[in-house]
């Protein structure tokens, strides 16, 4: 345990060197002023090092393990259909607990994601109030939840990842033409901000665990790809939500005009 901590700490130093080099490089060579609060910055960097070290060890002990265990338990033939079933006889719909679990993880982690809250507040300002903060957060969370659930379905069935992603791209392109112009850059960004540092390892481990236990799947080809779903689907759901709000507002305005006319 101690040697593992020391090992990880030393590797982490090399991981953080580029940031330090960039900041001090720009400060000395381009801005040519001493770094303000140099001591505070250096202490901060030590904290960053300790933080990454503990995070990576905890990840290995808990998050990776949890994702893997959940995948193995939920796909266990004894759990799905009683003890006398052969794994090969299961159909894709027998794995419904996996899809439900994926949906629940996607939904709950996205609703709690702080960077999404910030984006939602900005979206409300951009749209002049047509988009509500909670509406957007639920839209994105639903997008991530459906995305990850569909991603687990893909792993269970073993269909090629790029077919799903290409169809997703086509939907995004079509939506882009019809969505309110102001929301488009925000929607594109929302795909990137939804997957936090904690969610990514858990979801990745879930996918790898699934690919390892579902008969006929390979971790190498089927294991990754869940995060891709989680970053594509929010783009679709945000634009859909924006279109829906615009449509509702337009109808309300029309109705108000009609009533005023009478």
């Amino acid at each position, binding site marked *: 345990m101690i040697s593992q901590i020391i090992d990880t700490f030393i590797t982490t130093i090399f991981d953080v060197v580029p940031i330090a080099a960039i900041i001090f490089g720009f400060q000395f060579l381009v801005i040519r002023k001493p770094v303000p609060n140099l001591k505070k910055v250096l202490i901060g960097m030590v904290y960053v090092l300790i933080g990454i070290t503990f995070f990576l060890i905890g990840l290995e002990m808990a998050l990776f393990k949890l994702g893997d265990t959940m995948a193995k338990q939920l796909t266990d033939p004894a759990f799905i259909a009683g003890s006398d079933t052969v794994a090969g006889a299961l159909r894709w719909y027998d794995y419904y607990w996996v899809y439900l679990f994926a949906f629940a993880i996607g939904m709950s982690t996205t609703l709690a994601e702080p960077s999404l809250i910030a984006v939602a507040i900005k979206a409300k300002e951009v749209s002049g109030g047509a988009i509500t903060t909670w509406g957007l957060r639920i839209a994105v969370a639903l997008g991530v939840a459906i995305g990850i659930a569909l991603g687990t379905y893909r792993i269970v069935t073993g269909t090629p990842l790029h077919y799903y992603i290409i169809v997703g791209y086509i939907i995004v392109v079509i939506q882009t033409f019809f969505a309110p112009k102001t929301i488009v850059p925000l929607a594109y960004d929302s795909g990137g901000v939804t997957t936090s*540092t904690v969610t990514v390892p858990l979801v990745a481990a879930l996918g790898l665990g699934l690919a390892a236990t579902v008969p006929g799947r390979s971790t190498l080809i089927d294991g990754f790809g869940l995060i891709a779903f989680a970053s594509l689907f929010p783009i679709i759901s945000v634009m859909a939500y924006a279109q829906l709000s615009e449509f509702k507002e337009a109808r309300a305005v029309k109705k108000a005009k009609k009533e005023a006319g009478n």
Partner: protein
Amino acid sequence: MKSMVGSLRDLSPIVLVIAFFQLFVLQQVPDGIFEIIIGLVFVVLGLTFFIFGLEQGLFPIGESMAHAFARKGSVFWLSVFAFALGFGTTVAEPALIAIADKAATVAAEGGAIEATEAAMHSYAEGLRYTVAVSVGFSILLGVIRILMNWSIQYMIMAGYVIVVVVTSFAPAEIIGIAYDSGGVTTSTITVPLVTALGIGLATAIKGRNPMLDGFGLIAFASLLPIIFVLMYGILV
């Protein structure tokens, strides 16, 4: 203290959902529950230290630099800074470090690379630096877009077309990790600093709406890594 609350909030939905499934659906306690709990404590402690450290030093400097370069720096230095910012913040992203190691292990088990420590290490580093370089280019591209006022839609669509074309040449085992790398890159460190740069730029240029033009930097950072990692897979 505030960062502690933040890390707990990040983790609590995961713990709640898993606990619910363990107790009510699976009705069992996972093996090694104590190790898992210690691990979770480590994750919370680690994230707390990490965020606290960033807020102590790196965030204030990064943000003031972003504003300074956005306001008066030459286009050349602004571009160099944009690239360095994307590269530097991605290289140290904890989730990326973890996923790259995982990908190397999986590739070694599946026989795509040699199952030696050295081969796995170099594969993981290769992946990580490929992603970091691509995020560097993404931020650079995003900054040029804001300066030139190009339309983001057409650039993203062109990106999609390139992804589809490159996918058809890429080996099957790289596609999953390549598509995932777009979502992994943009989290704890990258988003706040890059947003500061975008908003700073859009505020500094006359006639731009910071609300509109400030966004869109992250979008490239989730698209270009896909293309770069696919190419990495073709070349390696």
